[in-house]
C-alpha cells in the first residue's frame, strides 16, 4: 500500500501526439481516485503510464515515494483491471486468479489459500473450476477484480472496468467495487468516461481534457464549484445550463438575453471578483435543480422560458425550455450529437413531478441565485475571489 505521485508527467507519442501534458497529481495512500474526461482526453494514457505499459516521456512518477519511471510493470507492484477483463480463456477461474502468484513461485498451499480468500471476498467460491467462457459478464468482471486483489498490490489500476456490463449490473458493481476497495484499503486509480461513476465512486475526482488536468477535488466540490466552464459542463446530468450574459452596472443585476435577473448583494460578496465584470460579459451557470417552476407572484430572481418538451421521470419532471440568451457549449464536455441537439438558448430544469407544465407554456422559473456559477467568457475560469 502506497501513495502515487505524478510530477509534471508528459506523454508524447512517436507520431508527435501529445497525449498527456504536464500532469501533476498526488494520490494518497488508500485513496480512491477517479480519472474522468471525454474520450481521447489522456486519462487512459495516464493510467497506462502509471502501470508501466507506456513509457513516460518526461516528468517523474513515484509510487510509495520511490521513482519508478524505469521500472517494469512487475517491479512497480501494481494490479490492473482492463475494460475487456483480459481473462485467460484457457485457464480456470482459480488459475486466472492465481497466475501472478504462480509466476512469483508462491508455495502451492499458500497460493490456494490466497485464491480462496479472494474468491470469498468476490463471491466466486463456487465458480473456481469454471473457465471464463462459462461465466456471465458480471462474474467475469469479478474474476478480473479477483486477479487484481489476490496479489495485494500497492496500487490498483482500473480502466473502465464496468463499461462492458449492462446498466443495471453496472450500478450494482459500482457499489461493490467501491466496497471492496474500502475493505482492502489499497490506493486505486480508476479511469472512466462516465461522470456518474466518477461522482459515486471516487474519494476524489480528476477531470481531464485534451491531455490537461482540469480540476482535482471531491465529487461535491467539483459539482458545486467547478474551476472552469469545461468542468461545469462535464460534471452533472442533465448538464448545467450555461449562458452568455452581461453583468449590469454596479453588479446589481445580470442581463440574460432580454431578461434582467436581479443579483443580490450576498452573491457579489461571496464572489468579489464579480464586481470587476460590471458592464462586461460573463458566462453564467445554473444547475437544472436550481430552477424552480413557481407562481409568477413569488419574489426573488427569476427567468421566464418557453417550454419545448417535458420528460417525466416519475419522481420529477425534466423540463426543456428556451430563453433568448446564447447557450454556451463547452467543447468536448458533451458529445457532438448532444451539442447539435442543444439549440441555442435551450435550457433544462428539474422540477417537481406534480408541476402543471406542458410544451408551449411560458413558465417562470425562480433561480437559486446563491448557487449560480460565473465564468470568464475568454479564459473559461470561474469568477470567485
Amino acid at each position: 500500500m502506497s501513495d502515487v505521485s505524478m510530477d509534471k508527467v508528459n506523454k508524447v507519442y512517436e507520431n508527435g501526439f501529445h497525449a498527456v501534458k504536464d500532469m501533476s497529481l498526488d494520490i494518497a495512500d488508500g485513496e480512491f481516485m477517479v480519472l474522468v474526461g471525454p474520450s481521447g482526453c489522456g486519462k487512459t494514457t495516464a493510467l497506462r503510464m502509471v502501470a508501466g505499459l507506456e513509457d513516460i516521456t518526461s516528468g517523474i512518477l513515484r509510487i510509495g515515494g520511490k521513482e519508478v519511471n524505469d521500472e517494469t510493470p512487475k517491479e512497480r507492484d501494481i494490479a490492473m483491471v482492463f475494460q475487456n477483463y483480459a481473462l485467460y480463456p484457457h485457464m480456470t477461474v482459480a488459475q486466472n486468479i492465481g497466475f501472478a502468484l504462480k509466476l512469483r513461485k508462491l508455495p502451492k498451499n499458500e497460493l490456494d489459500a490466497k485464491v480462496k480468500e479472494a474468491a470469498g471476498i468476490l463471491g466466486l467460491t463456487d465458480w473456481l473450476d469454471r473457465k471464463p467462457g462459462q461465466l456471465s459478464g458480471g462474474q467475469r468482471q469479478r474474476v478480473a477484480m479477483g486477479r487484481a486483489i489476490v496479489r495485494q498490490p500497492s496500487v490498483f489500476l482500473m480502466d473502465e472496468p464496468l463499461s462492458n456490463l449492462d446498466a443495471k449490473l453496472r450500478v450494482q458493481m459500482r457499489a461493490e467495487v467501491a466496497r471492496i476497495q474500502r475493505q482492502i484499503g489499497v490506493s486505486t486509480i480508476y479511469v472512466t468516461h462516465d461522470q456518474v461513476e466518477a461522482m459515486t465512486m471516487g474519494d476524489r475526482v480528476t477531470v481531464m481534457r485534451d491531455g490537461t488536468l482540469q480540476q482535482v477535488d471531491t465529487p461535491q466540490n467539483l459539482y458545486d464549484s467547478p474551476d472552469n466552464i469545461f468542468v461545469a459542463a462535464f460534471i452533472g446530468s442533465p448538464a448545467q445550463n450555461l449562458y452568455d450574459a452581461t453583468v449590469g452596472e454596479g453588479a446589481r443585476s445580470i442581463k440574460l438575453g432580454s431578461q434582467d435577473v436581479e443579483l443580490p448583494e450576498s452573491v457579489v460578496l461571496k464572489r468579489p471578483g464579480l464586481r470587476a465584470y460590471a458592464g462586461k460579459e460573463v458566462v453564467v451557470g445554473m444547475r437544472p435543480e436550481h430552477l424552480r417552476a413557481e407562481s409568477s407572484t413569488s419574489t426573488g430572481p427569476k427567468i421566464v422560458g418557453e417550454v419545448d418538451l417535458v420528460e417525466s421521470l416519475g419522481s420529477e419532471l425534466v423540463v426543456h425550455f428556451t430563453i433568448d440568451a446564447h447557450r454556451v457549449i463547452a467543447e468536448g464536455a458533451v458529445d457532438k450529437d448532444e451539442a447539435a441537439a442543444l439549440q441555442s438558448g435551450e435550457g433544462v430544469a428539474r422540477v417537481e413531478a406534480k408541476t402543471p407544465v406542458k410544451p408551449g407554456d411560458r413558465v417562470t422559473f425562480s433561480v437559486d441565485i446563491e448557487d449560480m456559477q460565473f465564468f470568464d467568457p475568454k479564459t473559461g475560469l470561474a469568477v470567485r475571489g
Partner: protein
Amino acid sequence: MTTTSSDTEQVPVAAPLVGRPDVNRKRMARLGWGFTTPSLIVIGLVTIFPIVYSVVLSFSAATVTGNGVALNGFTGSNYSLVLSSSKWHYALGFTIIYTLVTVLVELVFGTLIALVLERLTAGRGLMMALLLIPWSMITVINAELWGYIYQGTYGVADAILNAVGLGHPNILGQSTPAIIGLMIADIWKTTPFVAILVLAGLVMLPGDIYEAAEVDGSSGWSTFWRITVPLLRPTLALAVMFRVLQAFGLFDLPYVLTNGGPGTATTSLAILGYNVIFKNLSFGPGAAVATTSALLVLLGCLLSLRTFRVQVGKED
C-alpha cells in the same frame, strides 16, 4: 535528461520532452525482428535467392557442364527465342484459356453448391467434410483416377459415351476432348473447395440484413444479387485471385494425365518450362519461360494490390 536550475524553472518544459526514447517500444520491435528473422532467412534463401538466380540464368548463355551450369555472360537471346516460339505462344494461350474457364466454372458451381448447403437443415458438417476430401487429395491421384475414367477401351466415361451412341472417341487421344477432360478433372477437385469458401463467407454475413431485406420486400434472386453478392465480393475477389494465380502454375494434372499431349495440346507454361529445362537441358531458355510466367503472376498480383491492401492494411 538535463538538470534544471532554479532560475530556468519558468521556462516551459519543451526540452525534456524529446529526451526519453520509447525504450519499451524499441525493445518490443527488436524482439519482433528477432522472431521474424529466422523465417525471413529461410524464405529468402529458398525463394527470393532462386528467383533472382532464375532471372540471371534467363539472361545468360548458359551451358550444362559436368558439375552444374556455366553462365557464359549476358545475352538477350533466351527471351527472343522464347517470345518468338510458337510453342510458347500456344502454352501461354492454353494456360490463359484453361485458367479462365476452370475458375469461372468453379466459381459458378461453387456458389450454387454453397447456396444449397447453406439452406441444408441437416448433415451440413458431413457435407463439408466430404467436400474437403477432393481438396486434400494428391493431384497425381486425381490425374490417375480420371485417366482411368477416360481410358479409351475400359474407362467409365468411354462406356457412357458409347452407351449414348458416340462410339469410342478416345478422349485423351484428341486435342479438344483432352483439354475438356483435363478441365473436368480440375473442376471436380477444386469446385468443392470454392463452395466451402463461399459457404464460409455466406455464414458470416449478418442475418439481420436478410431480415431487413425481407421486411423491405426483397426475396429470392433480388436478395441474392443485391445483397448476398455485393457482401461476398471481397471473399470472392480474393478467392478468384488466388485460384487464377494458382491455375497459372498448372503442372501436376497435365503432367500425369496427358503428359502435355496429345502432341502439345495440354502443354501449360509450367510443363513447357519443365521440359525445356530438364528434358532439353536448356537452362537459359527454360529460365526465361519460368521468369516470364513469374512476371505474369507478379503483374496479376500488382493489379490486385488493392485487394491485398484490404486484407493487410486492417490494423495499420
